[in-house]
């Protein structure tokens, strides 16, 4: 493809490439841009900031090569970029910068389609997010970088008063507006309170996958939602501030104040910290980094870093997500263009 083969010409300016001319080599405009899902953001953002920092070979904290069986004297970004023939940057700068935008999966994919970003982060598959023709969808190239076992979280008060585990059906009833009071929930022992069901913005991957995985379709109605927040972080804060809230979000944002609960699907109980990341967990979902019309070398250099054991261990796992199995990792790596050395 055009972008892929020309390698260095990819830039973030999108449609009007001739506007700013061919400037793949220089530092600012040659940046690799990604954007979209706030679920994927912790992964790509971490990777991008380490990339931008470009730690030298002896930086054990950020560039622990031996641990992953890599041996090089190159700086981190120089090393990964060199796999696709990029020269090391000046003065310890990475060969090119990576900037990660934050919005929602749908937005990231649309921007990717319009050429406004190079990589579209998404926490739901493109066909669930975009209403587009098959041929159009085929132009999106899917790279799965990790797996989110989407948790259901509740306010601390609820957690301490019996809501440590819910049946999937109860959650469904809450979000479809059939359960309005916590007293209607089995096992709840606290004072009677209304349910505050928190949702993510329509159009976010989290919302789409929750509807698809919990309610059966990405378009399913959720009349029970009481408030909607734009990003995972806001959801976490809202749940933390309340004592009657329940929410779905990304695993990375779970904390002491925003505890995840166990879910029972048809008799199987998935417990956070135990088997939530199991393959069978119905709310688990792949985290995607889409590229458009093939994968350019710049994109490949960055994605390859994330898809190696190093990236999985350094970026995906610390963010709280499940890493890819070795076989999936190999499969994903094989989708990237051949390295040039």
């Amino acid at each position, binding site marked *: 493809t055009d972008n892929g083969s020309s390698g260095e010409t990819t830039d973030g*300016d999108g449609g009007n490439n001739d506007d700013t001319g061919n400037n793949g080599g220089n530092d600012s405009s040659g940046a690799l841009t990604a954007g979209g899902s706030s679920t994927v953001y912790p992964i790509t953002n971490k990777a991008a900031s380490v990339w*931008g920092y470009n*730690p030298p070979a002896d930086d054990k904290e950020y560039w622990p090569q031996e641990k992953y069986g890599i041996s090089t004297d190159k700086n981190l970004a120089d090393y990964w970029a060199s796999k696709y023939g990029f020269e090391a940057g000046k003065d310890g700068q990475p060969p090119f910068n990576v900037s990660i935008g*934050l919005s929602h999966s749908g937005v990231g994919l649309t921007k990717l389609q319009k050429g*406004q970003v190079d990589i579209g982060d998404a926490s739901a598959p493109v066909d669930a997010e975009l209403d587009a023709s098959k041929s159009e969808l085929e132009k999106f190239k899917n790279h799965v970088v990790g797996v989110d076992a989407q948790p259901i979280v509740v306010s601390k008060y609820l957690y301490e008063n019996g809501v440590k585990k819910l049946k999937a059906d109860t959650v469904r009833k809450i979000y479809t507006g059939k359960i309005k009071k916590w007293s209607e929930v089995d096992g709840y022992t606290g004072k009677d309170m209304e349910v505050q069901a928190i949702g993510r913005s329509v159009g976010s991957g989290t919302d789409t996958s929750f509807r698809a995985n919990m309610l059966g379709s990405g378009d399913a109605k959720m009349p029970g939602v009481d408030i909607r927040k734009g990003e995972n972080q806001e959801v976490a804060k809202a749940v933390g501030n309340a004592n009657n809230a329940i929410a779905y979000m990304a695993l990375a944002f779970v904390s002491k104040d925003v505890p995840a609960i166990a879910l029972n699907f048809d008799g199987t109980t998935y417990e956070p910290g135990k088997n939530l990341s199991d393959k069978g967990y119905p709310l688990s979902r792949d985290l995607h980094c889409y590229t458009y019309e093939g994968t350019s070398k710049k994109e490949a250099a960055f994605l390859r870093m994330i898809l190696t054991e190093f990236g999985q261990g350094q970026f995906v796992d610390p963010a709280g997500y499940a890493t890819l199995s070795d076989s999936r990792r190999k499969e994903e790596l094989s989708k990237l263009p051949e390295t040039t050395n």
Partner: protein
Amino acid sequence: MSEAYSQDSEIVTETGVLGQLATVPFVLALGMILLGGALLFQWVSLTTTVAGVSVATVFGGLHVVIALSLFALGALSWQGSVDTTPSPSVSSVVAFIDGSIAAVISGLVVSQTFGLGWFAWIPAALVAGVAVFVGTLLLREDIGVTVPVGIFELVFGLVVLTGVIGSGWSWTPEGFSATFPGFIAIAILGLFGGLLTAWSSAAAYRGFGARGREFGAYVLISINTAILLFILARIILFIVQKGLDPMLKGATLWPPAIPFITNGNGLQYDINGIFPAVVGTIWLVIGAICFAVPLGVGAAVYLTEYAEQGRFTSIVEIATNGLWSTPSIIFGLFGYAFLVPRLGNTPSLLAGQVVLGAMLLPLVLITSRESLQNVPDEYRDASAALGVNQWETIKSVVLPAAIPGVLTGVILGVGRIAGETAPILLILVQDPFPSEAPKVLSSFTLQATPPFVVNDALLQPASALPYQLFAVITAGVSAPESVGWATALVLLIVVMSFYVVGIAMRIYFRRKLQQ
């Protein structure tokens, strides 16, 4: 002296005993207002004890003591043992307020305490309201001002003292999702009763009559303003308290360094900072000024100096005032629909500059126009009488004289746009926590194809201080709450300094003009 002048001692009236007596409920009322505020802010709780007495009891006691002293004031004045000048009746406004309070109280009692429906509480409220309204109207002013308030205070006091409303009490009004706990109810009764008492005892202080009413009104208005100013101070102080420490984290006096302000966000920094946003804001402001000042001042010159007052000028006036009041988010929408597709199809600094410039434009125009109009016509006449043409006059006399006003307007306007988030949400930002600031100066390049001069930094996304705060709220994975407070503090400092400079300049130049 002729008989027409018989009542001549009247021009002298003394603030007598009543004045001193009235200070008692007045001071207590102020105390109750403060205490009510403290309760709302949760600086004290109902169960806090002061000298062995719980705050709730203190409230009840204050109400009752106030009630008794108000009765005393009324009685003394009625009896004529002190020198007062009450009108024969209270004003209908006072009667109406008393009636409304009575209506609310009885309505609430009937509906909430006895749990009766609208068929009961509406008539009850009406009857009580009308009765108190008419009753108050029939009273002489001194009684009408003190006694009803005293009765309300007595009721409030008894309700609190007897624990009918206390820390365990709560009330969920029908149809509302809120539940009012006892401490809020008591605080509100305290504030409300305090204001009523302050007014009533202030009127008594001046012996009722016109002067009493004046003092009563002034006391209420002054308390209102004091509360406003308190809230302002509280907001600012709160942000300083919360934000100062994180802002100064790692700061050193010598060499002077505040890493939070001079660092970007990234692993290369020990302390993550908001430098890119600071720089972004600076460039936004510069760009907006470059866009708005020539346009605004030029249009102001045309409108004041050249144009004849007519349809065109009134269209422009409507347009500028319309622009001025257009919600900022609409500028953002416009920028997204119109500018972004034309400026490289990506959020960019340039788009932000133009949009903020468009927001700044009307303010610059309005204030420039005002200050051009304030340039005395004498200067123009003097110049014209010397045979100097209009443009030279404008250039050499009118504009220089108007510059202070224009400058003030620009500074205040910049203060406003520098704090705007809504318009830049869609058109400026990509990365919520950038590590590098836009390098505008070093990015100018020439090229052979149109548009010949390009500046990549201008066409790239950037960040800005107010957005940075928004990012903490929405995307704070990499930024703890304290970073938000620190950012808020920096933003406040930046915006407020524009305002302080602008307001100070305006005061200074106005004063100079008056001399």
